[in-house]
Each structure stands twice: as structure tokens, then as C-alpha cells.
């Protein structure tokens, strides 16, 4: 819900009451000053203490729509939140809690957004957007972080590059849970996801557009920039035509991939220089639909952005030669390939939300802090070269760099690579999810599993791992147990057994940048 501002000259404060149509006898107060915030389909009024809003549909809702909304605030609300682990998901969505009706108009009770989703400072200069919602586009566009742009965000609002990986994890998790329940969001876009790189959080809003595949037909085709190519390519067909493609789980996955690409690279993956029609509207429809082509396609360069045709404020991010998508690391690059090359016109090939979550998390293990204090991104993904450097500011890594490759026991005495690597930096932590392959890093982790089991530090001119909680850590190279509260040297070629329990991993150490 992005509300259009209103400039009321005559505030006529008037408290009104709306009765719930779910919970008999329950009512909600709201303030009607005659000038509600107007969304696309709804008029929105604040509750007296602003802890919730009442959002009334301007148009009459038919039976189908009312039933759908009822289900969202009852059955689905309960299955998402009124069960173990439900509290975690409360942060990921702004989910309507009740449904009201006044004069035949249906309204939803929606909790107010958390404080962190409103700008504390906003623009670097002036009041402007202080106190406004942190709609995703503020953080998905290169302009608002360009030092030459007068309407750029204050540095205190931007977070580091690492923050956006965490923000994307939250979005992927939110979508994963929806899909697990058989729901599709149908209109995932930066307008419908609030993000906060400062607290590293994200929340999916406008939940009332949710669709249950097969049960209720989607009533929207989505928001520009995020609509899947097959939906655009068939939108000219009648609504009930069997070939017409509607919003569903796989179109959500297109939107998710676009969103992650934009939050990490601040450019759109399909908006390049290729002209598909001399008619502007037709060109846009083709370029985002039937003829959509990844701007960084490895073998078809025809849609590369033309830098001389772009806003100067879009740089440096618009320059795919300077900052190609592989700066996001091997796991995410592979998923971008799947989303924008193999899966772009083949929806079932698109990576699902869980794959994104895992790839994003694994990539954070490949990240290094940039030693340049002035670096805008502050973190970068190790580029797997012998002379690693920050792709954003060009600063080389100083000193040696331990690289730990994780292995699991495929069968007794046979160890296979996990395709998971942990880059060490000073004060980097080791966690259970590194130690044991049965511990998965996701929202189900217990508080105990989130406590580090050891840490790496550069001590007396050498790298060491300090064991804090590992009961069976063993230096396999020197055949030596490493008890808790002792440390082991991290040297080139060394093998460490992190745990002798079922699922326990071995790490093989390589020292890079020697």
C-alpha cells in the first residue's frame, strides 16, 4: 500500500466505528477527516492510536473476493502466526488481522508498520522524506545512492552491501512460507515490500492480493518491472482464454529474482538498450515480455545497457562491464543464470525461494570486509583470484586470506565437497550450520544454534581458530584433539574435523593472497 499524499486544508476530525464481520461484537475506531490516504483500490484511515489502519475498498467486493479476504484473516492468519515459530513470520509480513464492513464497504484491519520502516533522516539534505515509508525503490535504484545526485539518501539510511543480502534473505523467506502454504503473492514489487537496510529487515505488505491457485482468480497482473514475461506476452488474450498466463507461484519467483538483482546491483536485469519496436509502448511490452532478454546474457550481448543513453546518476551500477553480476559470487550468479537465462521464458526452471535463501546465506560466508574505510559498500564477495580485491573501490586485500572448504562424509572414509566455502576474516565466527550438515541455516534455528561455536582471529602473525563450544574438534593433519578454550593454527593444506557426530564436517584450509 503506497498511499498518495493529500493536502487537506480543512481537517474535520471525526472518530468513526467499524464493526468486525468475523468477530461478532468487536469494533474498531478510526479517524475520518474526510481525506483518507488513497491507495490504488483502497481508502485508508488510521486508528486513533495509529497502531492499525482501516483500509476500505472503494469498490464493492463480490462474494468471491469477500470469501478470499475472510480466509486470509482467519484460516491463513492462524496457520501462519498462531503456531510454533509464528512470531518470526509476523515480522516478515504486514498481515490483515480482521475484516470490517461499513455501509456495504469492506475494510481490512492492518497493523501499522514497524518504526524501522520509516526514514529517520531520509535525504542527505533537507526534510523531504523523513518519517516516510521505506518503499523498496529507494534502495533498488542507483540514483538514490549516487553522491552527485541532490536527492540521494543519507549514508545512515543505506547500510552496507552485506545488509542487502540479509534483506533479500528476509524477502525470500517470506515468499517461501507463502508458497509452502500454496499461496502466491501475485504482486510482489518494491512497492509491496518495505525494506530497511539499517535493521536488515523486510516486510511484505499488501497481503490482501494473495491468490490461492485454482481457487480464486488473480485480479491483478502485477507491477511494472516485476511482471513475468509470459504474463505480459499473453495479456492481450481474453481473461478466461486457456493460453492466458496469470500470476502464480512461478511469476512470484520471477519477481523475486528481479528484486534480488535490483537490491544487489541497483539496476533492472531486463532493461537494456535493445529496441524491439519503434512504437514506445509496444517496445516496452516486447522488451519486458515476449522478447525479454537478460542485459548480461553471456552469449547474446544485444540488450547490454548503452551508457550514453542512461542517466548519469545511474552510474556506476548501470555499467555491467565494470560491475558484472558475478560480483554477487558463484552461488547467486548461478541462480541469476537460472532465473534470467534458462528460466526467463520457461517458468518451471526458475529458482524457488528456498534456493535463493540458501544461496544468499552461503554467499555471506564468502564475504570479506573491505579494508578501505571510505568504501561505500564496505563488504564484497571473494572473487576467487590469487590477488583478491574489492570490486567496488578496487582496494586489495592486505595479508593472507584463509579459505575453508567444507566437506561431508558421503560414506565411511569418503568425503565429498559441499560446494560451500567459508572465507575467514579477523573475528569471523564459526556456527553450528558450518559444523554439521544436519543443522540448516534458516528461520527454524533455535536460539542455542545461533550462538557461535568458535571464532577466527589473526594472532601473533598467524591465523588461529579458537574453539568455544566444539566437543570433538580435531586437527586431522597433526592428529590432535583441540579441546574447548584452546586454539588451533590455521595453515595451508590443513584438515580439521569439526565434529565426529553424524553429519559432522571436515574443512580443508587454503591460504590465499600469500
Amino acid at each position, binding site marked *: 500500500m503506497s498511499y498518495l*499524499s493529500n*493536502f487537506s486544508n480543512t481537517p474535520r476530525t471525526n472518530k468513526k466505528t467499524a464493526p468486525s464481520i468475523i468477530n461478532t461484537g468487536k469494533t474498531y475506531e478510526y479517524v475520518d477527516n474526510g481525506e483518507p490516504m488513497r491507495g490504488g483500490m483502497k481508502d485508508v484511515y488510521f486508528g486513533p492510536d495509529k497502531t492499525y489502519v482501516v483500509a476500505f475498498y472503494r469498490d464493492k467486493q463480490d462474494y468471491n473476493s469477500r470469501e478470499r479476504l475472510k480466509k486470509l484473516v482467519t484460516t491463513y492468519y492462524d496457520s501462519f502466526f498462531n503456531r510454533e515459530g509464528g512470531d518470526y513470520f509476523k515480522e516478515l509480513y504486514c498481515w490483515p488481522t480482521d475484516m470490517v464492513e461499513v455501509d456495504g464497504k469492506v475494510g481490512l484491519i492492518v497493523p501499522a508498520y514497524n518504526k524501522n520502516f520509516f526514514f529517520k533522516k531520509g535525504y542527505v539534505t533537507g526534510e523531504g522524506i523523513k518519517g516516510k515509508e521505506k*518503499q523498496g525503490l529507494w534502495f533498488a535504484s542507483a540514483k538514490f545512492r549516487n553522491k552527485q545526485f*541532490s*536527492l540521494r539518501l543519507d549514508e545512515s539510511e543505506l547500510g552496507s552491501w552485506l545488509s542487502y543480502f540479509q534483506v533479500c534473505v528476509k524477502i525470500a523467506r517470506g515468499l517461501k512460507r507463502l508458497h509452502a502454504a500454496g499461496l502466491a503473492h501475485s504482486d510482489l514489487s518494491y512497492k509491496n515490500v518495505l525494506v530497511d537496510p539499517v535493521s536488515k529487515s523486510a516486510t511484505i505488505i499488501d497481503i490482501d492480493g494473495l491468490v490461492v491457485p485454482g481457487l480464486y482468480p488473480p485480479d491483478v497482473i502485477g*507491477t*511494472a518491472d516485476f511482471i513475468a514475461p509470459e504474463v*505480459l506476452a499473453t495479456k492481450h488474450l481474453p481473461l478466461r482464454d486457456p493460453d492466458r498466463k496469470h500470476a502464480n507461484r512461478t511469476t512470484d519467483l520471477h519477481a523475486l529474482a528481479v528484486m534480488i538483482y535490483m537490491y544487489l546491483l541497483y539496476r533492472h536485469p531486463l532493461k537494456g538498450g535493445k*529496441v524491439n519496436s*519503434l512504437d514506445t509502448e509496444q517496445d516496452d511490452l516486447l522488451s519486458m515480455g515476449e522478447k525479454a532478454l537478460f542485459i548480461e546474457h553471456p552469449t547474446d550481448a544485444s540488450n547490454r545497457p548503452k551508457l550514453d543513453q542512461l542517466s548519469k546518476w545511474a552510474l556506476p551500477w548501470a555499467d555491467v562491464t565494470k560491475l558484472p553480476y558475478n560480483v554477487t559470487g558463484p552461488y547467486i550468479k548461478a541462480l541469476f543464470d537460472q532465473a534470467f537465462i534458462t528460466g526467463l521464458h520457461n517458468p518451471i526452471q526458475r529458482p524457488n525461494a528456498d534456493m535463493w535463501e540458501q544461496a544468499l546465506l552461503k554467499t555471506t560466508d564468502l564475504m570479506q570486509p573491505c579494508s578501505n574505510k571510505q568504501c561505500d559498500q564496505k563488504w564484497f564477495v571473494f572473487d576467487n583470484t590469487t590477488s583478491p580485491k574489492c570490486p567496488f573501490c578496487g582496494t586489495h586485500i592486505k595479508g593472507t586470506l584463509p579459505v575453508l572448504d567444507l566437506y561431508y562424509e558421503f560414506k565411511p572414509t569418503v568425503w565429498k565437497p559441499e560446494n560451500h566455502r567459508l572465507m575467514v576474516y579477523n573475528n569471523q565466527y564459526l556456527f553450528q550450520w558450518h559444523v554439521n550438515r544436519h543443522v540448516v541455516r534458516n528461520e527454524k534455528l533455535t536460539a542455542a544454534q545461533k550462538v557461535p561455536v568458535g571464532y577466527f582471529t589473526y594472532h601473533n602473525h598467524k591465523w588461529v581458530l579458537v574453539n568455544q563450544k566444539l566437543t570433538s574438534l580435531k586437527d586431522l593433519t597433526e592428529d590432535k584433539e583441540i579441546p574447548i578454550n584452546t586454539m588451533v593454527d590455521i595453515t595451508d593444506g590443513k584438515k580439521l574435523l569439526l565434529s565426529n557426530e553424524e553429519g559432522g564436517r571436515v574443512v580443508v584450509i587454503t591460504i590465499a593472497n600469500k
Partner: protein
Amino acid sequence: MRRLPVYLLLDTSGSMTGEPIEAVKNGVQVMISSLRQNPQAIETAFISIITFDSVAKQVVPLTDLASFQMVDIKATGTTCLGDALKVVSTCIDNEVAKTTAEQKGDWKPLVFIMTDGIPTDDWQSGLEEFKKRKTAYTVACAAGSGADANLLKQITENVVSLDTADSQSIAKFFTWVTASIGVTSTKVEDGGKEVTGLGELPPPPSELNIVT
């Protein structure tokens, strides 16, 4: 990068002297600062101001929201609406990029016209020129009882009227223009919901009457 060009044609004839012209100036300022709070608008919208009295002139060329600076305008002279339509036609030719084989062009422009009186020049010849240009939509606003909504209907089917040309009504109009630009800067890129008329815009505030 595709731009969304927005042309505001503002009546600065003598009858606008006093409260109306001040309200227009204020309206433009409030509109710009409000649009500067909308990231979609900042990404795409470019604004130009054309004033018309005894002559029409483009006082602010098509400018992005971050760089936009309003100039002082004064109310004087007659109401050369026809000349304004000619000027906006020329500006569209010169400023709005066409799509070519090598370059993606701009979106079709939005044109808002506000006038409080009857045109004093040969407005039909200006209209003839203007009709040759493609716009996403044109909205004409008849401000106060001195304006002729039915005449404006010949320029565009989208005509709104203000009962009085006082500061409050004019402010409402600019609020609505702001919302329209905001909605359009999002929707115009959406292949599914091409904006072509008033039906797609946010509902006008109660002080605005849509002339049908």
C-alpha cells in the same frame, strides 16, 4: 532511460492577478516537493512549465525533479491559449525523444492545462497543431466561472472544473495533478494498465468537478 514528460500550461493572464496567481505558484512548489517524495516520480517524471498571457512561452524546459527550479511568474495581459498549444507542440517535437532503432524513446507526454478565462487568440489553429502530437492524456482545468468548460472539451475529453479560482481550489487541483503524475509514473511502464483517460487516474478531490 525512458522519461515521462509532463507539460503544465498555466494561464497567467491579467485576470489571474492576486490570489489565483499566488495559488498557482504555490501549487507548483507544493507539487514539486511532493513529487520529490515519490521515488517512481523521481525516476521517470520530467516537468516543464509553459505560461500563456498575451504570448505563450516555455518558462521551465523539461527538467528532472531533482534539478527543477520554479521561476517567478506574473499575471498580465490576455489569454493566448492557442499560442500555448503551439508552444507545447514545438516543445514536444524538440524535447520528447522518439524511439529509434538505436535508442529507446520517452513515454508519451502528459499535458495539464489550467485557465480561468476564454481564449483571446485564434485557439483553433493552435489546437490543430496540438492534435498532431501524441499525448498519453491531456487534462484541461476550467478554473472559476470565467472559464468555458465546453470550449476546453474540444481540446480534450478530460476536463475538470473548479467552481472558484481561489487558493484552496487551485491547491486541490495541484494535489490531484501531483497524484496523477505519481500514479502515471508507476502505471505508464505497466504494459497491463496503459493510462489513457481520467478513468485510470485517482479520483479527483470533491472540489473538482469532472465535466462530462
